[in-house]
């Protein structure tokens, strides 16, 4: 590509990716009048009212952030706790088992999980799991499990067998080997898997929508969509833009800090999966 084309493409990527976000940011600081009349004078144009409204709402908006944080962290921990031993054993399994397991996992990872919501709702009703943030972590862990195992198995396979043999000769049992030798070696891919699981749980919508009805327990995506209400014209756009900005900040931070891990996690999933 020639230099000028390259810069053109680069600018397009930047504008396309963050243009909509900038518009949200602009909206969140605009007065209702400014949104309707772009030629309004400067003093009547900017405001913090939208943020005040969002942060003083009842229940306060940060509650949803905390709810999503709780669900995200616990789901991630549960998934890793189950997926790490499973991936370890899958990396050691014989050809037939690993072939069958891969079909099973790949099929599940491919499945549009939205279609599961009704059966999961029945499940929640039968075992009384509705309106419970911890219970919500069960389906979240299960839904992230296939991808987590696929990624982790491939990185277990990359660890040279000699390392584990040496530890075995030193007299370490399986749990010790995992905890002291293998998991520390795999920390990069474990952390990228963790971030992928966290992002999924933070963003999940249909199951949270059907399992949680208590106002105080809503997760962020459901709370935000409730702001949208029903009519296209009655939405308080300034306020909801402020809500989306506040709701995006934790994720922006995660992406900024863990950009490398996210990319390498996805890439590993792609190359090996």
């Amino acid at each position, binding site marked *: 590509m020639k230099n000028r084309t390259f810069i053109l493409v680069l600018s397009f990527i930047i504008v396309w990716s963050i243009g909509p976000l900038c518009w949200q940011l602009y909206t969140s600081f605009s007065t209702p009048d400014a949104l309707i009349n772009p030629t309004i004078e400067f003093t009547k144009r900017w405001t913090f009212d939208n943020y005040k409204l969002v942060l003083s709402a009842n229940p306060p908006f940060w509650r949803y952030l905390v709810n999503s944080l709780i669900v995200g962290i616990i789901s991630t921990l549960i998934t890793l706790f189950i997926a790490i031993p499973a991936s370890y054993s899958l990396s050691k399994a014989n050809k037939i088992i690993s072939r069958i397991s891969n079909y099973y996992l790949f099929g599940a990872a*491919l499945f549009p999980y939205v279609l599961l919501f009704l059966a*999961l709702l029945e499940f929640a009703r039968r075992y009384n799991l509705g309106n419970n943030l911890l219970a919500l972590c069960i389906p979240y862990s299960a839904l992230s499990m296939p991808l987590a195992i696929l990624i982790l198995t491939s990185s277990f396979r990359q660890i040279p067998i000699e390392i584990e043999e040496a530890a075995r000769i030193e007299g370490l049992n399986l749990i010790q080997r995992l905890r002291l030798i293998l998991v520390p070696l795999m920390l990069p891919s474990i952390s990228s898997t963790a971030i992928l699981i966290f992002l999924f749980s933070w963003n999940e919508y249909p199951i949270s929508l059907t399992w949680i009805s208590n106002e105080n327990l809503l997760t962020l995506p459901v709370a935000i969509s409730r702001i949208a209400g029903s009519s296209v014209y009655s939405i308080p756009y300034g306020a909801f833009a402020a809500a989306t900005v506040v709701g995006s900040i934790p994720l*922006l931070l995660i992406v900024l800090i863990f950009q490398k891990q996210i990319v390498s996690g996805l890439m590993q999933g792609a190359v090996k999966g």
Partner: protein
Amino acid sequence: MINLLLLPAFTLILIVFIIPIIRYGWISLHSFSLATNLSLIPNQFANWDRLLNDSRFWVDIYQTTRFAFVSVFLEIILAMIIALTLNKHFNNRGIIRTISLLPWALPTTIMALGWRWIFNAPYGPIEQLIRILGLAELNILSNPNFTWIATVIADVWKTTPFIAIILLAGLQTIPKDLYEAFKLEGGTYFDSFKEITLPLLKPYISLSIIFRLAQAFGVFDLIQVITSGGPAGSTESIALYAYLNAMRFLDFGYSSTIMVASFILLILLILVINLSIYSGKKILSTIKL
């Protein structure tokens, strides 16, 4: 013995993925709604009969498939451009990579609302731009001919980064010397793209196509938030119709039937795509899990 460690994970997946599908199949052979006092009453194939004659279901299948194909097609092209760009060495590549990843990381519902505001008539930026250009108003969210395009744009924006990263992973497996050799032979950039990049990226492209088609076929939150299926049902997806049947009409029997049917159609769709990409060879053996 060590295979026992797989058990907890596989049981969890069984409970959450496999048992629901079996359960749907079972429910779809029964009347199960408020009218039956929420008990299962066998009704032979009444649900399936209704499904075959339900034009709303078939319209939704058409709309969902159209949405999925157009979105994934645009996503692949755009993702290819982004991946090729990010594969080059330039200053601040990390920042650009982070920026291009952002849409994917944000919750769908959040940015779906954002897009709804962007497409808003008459105050959204698009309508304002159109007005400045002196063109007629589009009213994109209230015109049944256009609204689905708005949902496609929002979906493309949201999921392109994901595909771009997969393609980028593929690009980085291609040895640079291949391009050097091609250049020495006098090939142009576009020739080398056609002769080297595309063939070697094929597994990654087909992985993305299959994965994204399956996900797009189940599109739900995006549509629910931007249009709620409107105007006049012109953007309603299968998942949304199943959701409405269960949660609004409280007809769980019919909702389950829709899910089983869309599941079967999805498998057929993936098989057809597989066959057309690989002319007979199975994708799973090609990708080498």
